[in-house]
């Protein structure tokens, strides 16, 4: 009997799949072949270790966390097979622009977001400040090398809004001066910008400026109406310890310490727009709302002690 055949027997032996005769065939071979005997010992050890892997349990009740969603499905009549289509659309949203941004998200999350955005924006500003100041940047090749980069450009825009918020809190950044100058310029033309937002379409520089707006006006506004505009919303915690920043576009929520400007926590990207940031009176919980591309809202809360994000 060849070792390769014995290998199959040993594998099945481990799963308790051998009959008496097959078992003795295997054992006889292993008695004579030290390689196979050693292999059997290693497979047995591996198998028993696999059996002993920890039976992990979720840190909170997952069913509790989806109860509001189930309630909504029930109310919508989508539950229990009455409307398969509606159920599907909730469980697996069809490929949407949000989904297709994912590779970019992944890429950018790996880079230390805010710093990278600062550098990117700095470069954009230095490369062609004139165009930026005139807001006529659609022909700026450096900023928009190809249509394919549009999702990434949008990502930059949303990250920029985060760095803008940081700047508000006086982050020391080598590009700070530039950003501040830019802020003033944008500020003076604010009415113009919001008018422009409806017609902004795919012109990336416009998005950047719109994204910047809330940091100029102190935040807390309703997100813009034009799906393309991606204003960040911010909210200070009642105990003045934290500032929550909803980074639109990549759909994350970040919590910074107000004193040291350090990132305390960043959520995983959500499928949709984060807004309506509301702190509990004791600053222990931050409530927020995620609105997906179809306009469905889900209520979330972030526990500031455990940083557990749960649906309400």
């Amino acid at each position: 009997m060849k070792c390769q055949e014995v290998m199959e027997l040993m594998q099945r032996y481990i799963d308790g799949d051998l009959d008496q005769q097959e078992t003795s065939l295997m054992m006889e071979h292993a008695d004579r072949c030290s390689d196979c005997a050693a292999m059997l010992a290693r497979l047995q050890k591996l198998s028993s270790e696999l059996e002993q892997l920890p039976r992990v349990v979720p840190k909170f009740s997952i069913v509790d966390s989806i109860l509001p969603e189930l309630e909504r499905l029930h109310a919508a009549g989508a539950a229990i097979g009455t409307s398969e289509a509606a159920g599907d659309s909730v469980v697996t949203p069809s490929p949407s622009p949000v989904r297709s941004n994912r590779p970019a998200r992944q890429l950018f999350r790996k880079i230390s977001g805010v710093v990278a955005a600062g550098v990117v924006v700095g470069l954009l500003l230095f490369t062609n400040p004139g165009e930026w100041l005139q807001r006529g940047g659609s022909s700026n090749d450096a900023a928009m090398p190809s249509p394919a980069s549009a999702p990434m450009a949008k990502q930059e825009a949303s990250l920029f809004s985060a760095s803008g918020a940081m700047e508000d809190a006086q982050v020391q950044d080598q590009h700070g001066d530039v950003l501040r100058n830019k802020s003033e310029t944008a500020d003076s033309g604010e009415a113009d910008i919001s008018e422009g937002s409806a017609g902004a379409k795919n012109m990336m520089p416009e998005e950047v400026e719109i994204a910047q707006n809330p940091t100029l006006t102190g935040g807390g506004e309703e997100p813009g109406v034009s799906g393309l505009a991606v204003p960040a919303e911010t909210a200070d915690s009642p105990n003045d310890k934290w500032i929550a920043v909803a980074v639109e576009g990549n759909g994350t929520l970040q919590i910074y310490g107000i004193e040291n400007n350090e990132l305390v926590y960043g959520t995983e990207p959500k499928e949709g727009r984060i807004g309506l940031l509301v702190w509990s009176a004791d600053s222990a919980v931050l409530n927020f709302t995620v609105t997906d591309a179809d306009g469905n809202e889900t209520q979330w809360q972030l526990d500031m002690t455990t940083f557990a994000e749960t649906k309400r």
Partner: protein
Amino acid sequence: MVEPALIKAAQAGDREALVTLLREIENQVYRTAYYLLNNEQDALDASQDALIRIYTKIGSYEEKAQFRTWVQRIVTNICIDKFRRKKPSVSIDEHEMVFQAGDNVETEVLSAYAAEEIREAIGKLPEHHRTVVVLRYLQDFSYNEIADSLNLPLNTVKSYLFRARQQLQTLLHDYQKGGVRG
């Protein structure tokens, strides 16, 4: 083991029964997701998706299948979809070797691998091999139950499982050698 009566009630539109049923399977759903995705947050997200899908699809469950294999089919599909979207699959071809009998096999056999190392090694397996290992060891499924869950022929399940164990054994073997040298 979920009571058939509970499943029937849930299918008949008893919402409370359905929620109770979800609570009963929540941990087994999470366990699979956790070991497939190798990340707590992703596992929580995938489990939520899976439970919501089970909630909406309970009517399509047919008694001829085992309920737990039906549940595992849903959660493994969601996880596979998730990690396909998340990262390009890493080829394991360099580990695709048949077994290697080292000189110091006996001494290695004596030392135990930490659960963490094993979990990492599982994460390096191709998706189907990983799924088969998780169902076999974290759900205690038989070959047949794995075949039902993944809609694969029995022989394919065996070959995936056997190769997965050889790969794991090689990966952990390499890891140890690396650890000793490094």
